[in-house]
């Protein structure tokens, strides 16, 4: 789902105030993109709103790279479509 990846990349880039090109699949949010826990919460809430899903709190610690974040979004999108 390249669209999902790009949509989430753009959302993350806006929240961390970086160029989307810097948000590579494996760039580490906290170490490389200067993210903090409040920004992670914003990303979680942003995905919930955009995709009309509910992501449980314990998944917050999974949001460490774009790859992981897209995987979390996919997991809950699939659950919703069952």
């Amino acid at each position, binding site marked *: 789902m390249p669209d999902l990846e790009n949509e989430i990349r753009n959302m993350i880039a806006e929240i961390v105030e970086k160029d989307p090109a810097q948000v590579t699949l494996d760039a580490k949010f906290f170490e490389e993109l200067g993210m*903090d826990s*409040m920004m992670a919460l914003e990303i*979680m809430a942003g995905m919930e709103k955009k995709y009309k899903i509910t992501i449980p709190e314990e998944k917050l610690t999974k949001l460490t790279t774009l790859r992981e974040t897209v995987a979390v979004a996919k997991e809950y999108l699939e659950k919703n479509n069952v």
Partner: protein
Amino acid sequence: MFNIEEIQKILPQKFPFLMLDRVLELEAGKKIVALKNISINESFFAGHFPGQPVMPGVLIIEAMAQAAIIMFYAPGSIPAAKQASYYLGSVKIRFQHPVTAGDQLRIEVEPIKVISGAGLVKAKASAGGREVASGELSFSVQYG
């Protein structure tokens, strides 16, 4: 719902930094509607601006943040004032119209996403039935 005496018991903020006068509606953790009356005697009007009173936008944000604190305060729990510290994380607010003396600021706050120790809320302020500011605030809570 809550008058000023009760607001003062809940909020850690004190004079001259109480930005709410009354709580009209409260569903703990779900929604709050609160009021702040803006008088020409507000101390900030002395400098903001001489001869042209405009309520500073940051104080509208503060009123929204204080409303959020009360929204997350569950009646019957330990008073928020003694047990928790609240820190704003980020603010995304758009201001539409200036607020001046004589206005009654109506603040509405609803949660977007709340987890233990942090939250993201949607906030709106209106005066005279017209929206004056709206957007989102995130904050963290530290206990003890």
